[in-house]
C-alpha cells in the first residue's frame, strides 16, 4: 500500500481542488486515481476535511448543484488555500525512520519475551515472505509504464519494502539457526497475511 495517510489531509484536499471547483465525490475519485495503490479516501473523511477547509478560509463553497441526483456542494480553493499548498510543497517532508515499526516490534518482542532467537528467526523469515509477496504484487501491476506519477509512487513503495527487506536479511543472518534445524518448509504464511503464528521455538 502506498501511504498517503501521513500526507496532510488538508494539503491533499487543496491539491485535489486545484484543477477546478469540485464536489466531494469528485475529490474522492480524483484522489483514488492519483494514488491507485493507496487505501481509497472515505467519503466521511472527504466531507469533514472540506468542511474544515471552508471554516479556515482555505476553500469556499461556490455553488450547490442538483443534477437529478442528490444535492451537491461544489468547493473551490481560495488564494489562502493556494498559498498554503505552495508553502507545503516548498517545505521538505520530515525524514521517516525514527520510531520502531511493527516489524521491529515483533522481532524485539520475540527476542525479549524469552522465546529466543529461533522464534525471532521464524518471525523474521515469515515477514520476509510477506514483504516479498507484496513487492511482487506491486511490481506486477500495470499502468506504470505510461504514467510517470504512478511509476514513481510505486517505486517509492517498492524501495521502502526493499529497505525493510534489507533489515530483515540482516536480522536473519544475525539470528542463529537452531542446531540441525531442517530448512523451513516452503509453505510460509497464507497470502498477504504477515500474521504472527504461534511463537513456538521449532516448527
Amino acid at each position, binding site marked *: 500500500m502506498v501511504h498517503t495517510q501521513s500526507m496532510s489531509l488538508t494539503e491533499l484536499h487543496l491539491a485535489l481542488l486545484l484543477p477546478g471547483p469540485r464536489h466531494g465525490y469528485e475529490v474522492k475519485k480524483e484522489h483514488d486515481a492519483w494514488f491507485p495503490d493507496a487505501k481509497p479516501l472515505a467519503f466521511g473523511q472527504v466531507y469533514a476535511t472540506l468542511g474544515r477547509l471552508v471554516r479556515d478560509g482555505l476553500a469556499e463553497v461556490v455553488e450547490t448543484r442538483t443534477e437529478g441526483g442528490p444535492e451537491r456542494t461544489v468547493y473551490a480553493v481560495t488564494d489562502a488555500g493556494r498559498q498554503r499548498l505552495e508553502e507545503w510543497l516548498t517545505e521538505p517532508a520530515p525524514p521517516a525512520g525514527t520510531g520502531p515499526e511493527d516489524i521491529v516490534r515483533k522481532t524485539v518482542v520475540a527476542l525479549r519475551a524469552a522465546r529466543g532467537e529461533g522464534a525471532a528467526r521464524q518471525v523474521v*523469515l515469515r515477514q*520476509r*515472505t510477506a*514483504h*516479498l*509477496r507484496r*513487492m*511482487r504484487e506491486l*511490481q506486477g501491476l500495470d499502468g506504470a509504464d505510461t504514467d510517470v506519477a504512478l511509476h514513481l509512487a510505486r517505486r517509492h513503495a*517498492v*524501495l521502502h*519494502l*526493499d529497505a525493510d*527487506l*534489507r533489515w530483515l*536479511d540482516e536480522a*536473519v*543472518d544475525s539470528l542463529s*539457526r537452531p542446531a540441525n534445524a531442517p*530448512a*523451513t*518448509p*516452503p*509453505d*510460509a504464511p497464507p497470502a498477504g497475511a504477515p500474521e504472527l503464528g504461534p511463537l513456538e521455538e521449532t516448527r
Partner: protein
Amino acid sequence: MNAPAVELVGVSHSYARTPALQHVSLSVVPGEVVAVTGPSGCGKSTLLHVAAGLLRPQEGRASLLGQDLHHLDETARAVLRRREVGIVLQYGQLVPDLPLLDNVALPLLLDGGDLAQSRTAAQEALERVGLQDAAQAVPAEVSGGQAQRAAVARALITSPRVLFADEPVASLDPAGARQVLGLLMSAARLGGAALVLVTHDNTVAALADREVRLRTGSIEHEAVLR
C-alpha cells in the same frame, strides 16, 4: 508435463576444504521462476554451476530436462547445454577476442548454424538489449553493464528451455535492469522456460514464483511468492 526441468537431489560439494553446498535439493518446473538468494559466499554460484552441468558435485545428482548429467559424457552434456540451456555467468563469460555480435552468435555457430543467419539473429538479439550500435566492439571496449547485456542476449539466442542467470543485472542501472529482466521473465512467462535467477537484490527476487534462500551451503528457507 510438470516433470522438473532442473533437478538437484542431495547435492554436496566442497572446494579444497571449503564446503560450498551441503545436501541441497531443488527442482524447477518449466515456466517456473526461482530466485536463489543469500549472503555472499553462501553457495549460490556453486549451486548454479552444478545445476547447469558446469560442475560435477562430489555427492548427489543433478539432472536437466530429465537427463541425469552424471550419465552423460562431456560431449553429450555440452550439446544439451548448447541447445537447451542459456547461461549468464556472474563473471567473464564473453570471449575476449570476438566482437559482441559473434559472441552472441556463438551458440548458434557452435551448433553448426549458417554464419550469415546466425549473425542476423545475433544482431536482432543485440537490438533487444539496446546494444545494436556496439555489435562490432570487443568485450574490453564496452562497459560492464553492456557486457552483461550481451551475455544475456547470448543466453537467450537459442530460445532455451532452461535459463540460468547469476546476478544478471548487478551492474545495470534501474532502466537497463528492467529491460534485461523483462527479457528473462518473458522467456519464462511466454516461452515456458524454467528460469533460475541468482540475485542478492530483493527487487529482483520478488519477480520470482519461489525464493530459495541459502545460508552457508544449505537451504535456509523457501518461500512461495506467487
